[in-house]
């Protein structure tokens, strides 16, 4: 801790250390863990996130092709909901940037999630490439306005899939003998 005059100033490492501790406390908060302990509940969250993501893409497509009053507000509200649900999925899966203290099992799980996610997006990109080539070879016209929503949904899928995979596949968290049973 440094001093400047009569004011004590925390060093950068002190601030970073405090932020890490706060992040860790938020992720490992007992209420939060109990909320997302059951896999079934996490899967519902993932399904909701998927539905809202598709809805957001649809709202963007609608606004770009046939703008309507309040269209951007609807899109932004849905995008905000995607962010909120996505944050909960990340917390449930302990997929939080800057979260330290992962043990070997958790690191192995996250590594596996990244591998599966990479394979999925590779397959999707290949499918998109084939679809684009086929459309180019035909007379079917695809509006350019459809590109942005498609890329938006694809971007969300790519960025969220590792935590989604973990939230979907991890078994129910088993409470310790000292903890209250899961609700």
């Amino acid at each position, binding site marked *: 801790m440094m001093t400047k005059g009569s004011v004590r100033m925390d060093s950068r490492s002190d601030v970073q250390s405090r932020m890490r501790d706060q992040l860790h406390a938020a992720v490992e908060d007992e209420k939060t863990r109990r909320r997302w302990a059951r896999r079934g509940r996490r899967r519902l969250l993932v399904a909701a996130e998927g539905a809202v993501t598709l809805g957001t893409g649809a709202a963007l497509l609608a606004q770009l092709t046939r703008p309507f009053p309040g269209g951007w507000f609807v899109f932004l509200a849905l995008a905000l909901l995607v962010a909120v649900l996505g944050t909960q999925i990340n917390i449930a899966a302990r997929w939080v940037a800057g979260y330290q203290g992962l*043990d*070997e*099992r958790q690191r192995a799980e996250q590594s596996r999630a990244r591998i599966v996610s990479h394979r999925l997006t590779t397959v999707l990109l290949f499918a998109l490439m084939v679809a684009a080539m086929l459309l180019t070879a035909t007379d079917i016209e695809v509006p350019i306005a459809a590109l942005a929503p498609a890329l938006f949904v694809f971007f969300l899928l790519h960025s969220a899939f590792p935590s989604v995979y973990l939230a979907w596949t991890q078994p129910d968290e088993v409470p*310790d003998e000292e903890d209250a049973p899961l609700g």
Partner: protein
Amino acid sequence: MAETANGSKRSRAKTGTSGEQIFNRIAMLRAERGISRRQLAETLGVHYQTVGYLERGEYSPSLHLALRIAQYFEVPVEVVFSTAPFPRIGSGENT
């Protein structure tokens, strides 16, 4: 499913690059010493859920972690882990 030394069922280990199944007596050793998963996890420096995964055979520890677990319980590592099911206590077989 294989049975542990205390008679509880255990699911097949899901980790291990070559699909090996590792049996363990962590739960029994922990119960003998009256310590919780959280206490053991804190001592080993792992998440308490990982202790649960280990006990259920859903995760095979690294060599380093396995040795530290054995060291904590003050027993040889082969007393804690085995590639074959541990015999029931009182079965008359060597443990």
